[in-house]
């Protein structure tokens, strides 16, 4: 694998990470924020695999990536459950509109 290929792959990882960061910071919708979090993880996973290939220890890189993917899925499940509950109780998925009154329940 040539140096140019490595550069392109790491640039793609940077784009994935930047897109995730952008989605997480600029989006109002809770589901879209979870999607951004997943994109962040994908960029990091690609860096791990390319780095593992470069260092010759691809097995450890794969083990770390598998751990990353499993943790991401778990975090996404809990975050999406919270988003669904927010929609049910507060009637919105807009992160800026989440204003829980004292004692809970719908505002």
């Amino acid at each position, binding site marked *: *694998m*040539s140096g140019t290929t490595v550069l392109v792959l790491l640039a793609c990882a940077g784009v*994935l990470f930047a897109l995730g960061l952008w989605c997480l*910071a600029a989006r109002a919708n809770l589901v879209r924020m979870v*999607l951004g979090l997943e994109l962040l993880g994908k960029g990091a996973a690609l860096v791990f695999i390319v780095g593992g290939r470069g260092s010759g220890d691809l097995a450890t890189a794969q*083990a770390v990536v598998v751990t990353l993917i499993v943790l991401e899925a778990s975090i996404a499940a809990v975050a999406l459950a919270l988003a669904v509950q927010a929609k049910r109780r507060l009637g*919105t998925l807009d992160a800026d509109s989440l204003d829980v009154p004292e004692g809970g329940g719908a505002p």
Partner: protein
Amino acid sequence: MPELQAILPPFLGIAAAICALAAVLARNLLRAVAAFALSSAFLAALFFTLGAPFAGAVELTVGAGLVSVLLLVSIVLSGGGEEAAHRRAGGVGMQPGKALPAIVVATAFAAVFAIVLFAAVRSSGKGGIPPLPANPASPGSVLWERRTLEVLAQGAVLLAGVMGVLSVLRPRHGREEGA
């Protein structure tokens, strides 16, 4: 075919990035999830071509499959409609006050990443990445022998995640009756 092996990884990486961009910019949430799943599938194929089939299989089943299904289920459970902020912004769902800072932060990150990347590639010379060894270690053996604590922690986190989802989504009869 050495040409195909040289072209395929950059092609798959760029395709994954383009699909991720489509997922971020899509107005419809269902289309965003479809683009996200496609991006994950391209990334899984990239992992396979880079000689990481274990990570590719997990990415394809969990990243492209499970997480996409979770996103779809949450969209359906939360009404399936597009967000109110999306309609207010009249565009792609950006928060008006946060769009510019987010673009600045993402661009700054990309610039720093590009500088570090350029320096790393330049210092490593033009040789690129060496080919894979003939008998590489198995990721399974690495996980179970060298990273046992990680495997146990993964199990604990998954269990905590399941309990968390059940706890968040369980009906609260007492509080609703009292309200």
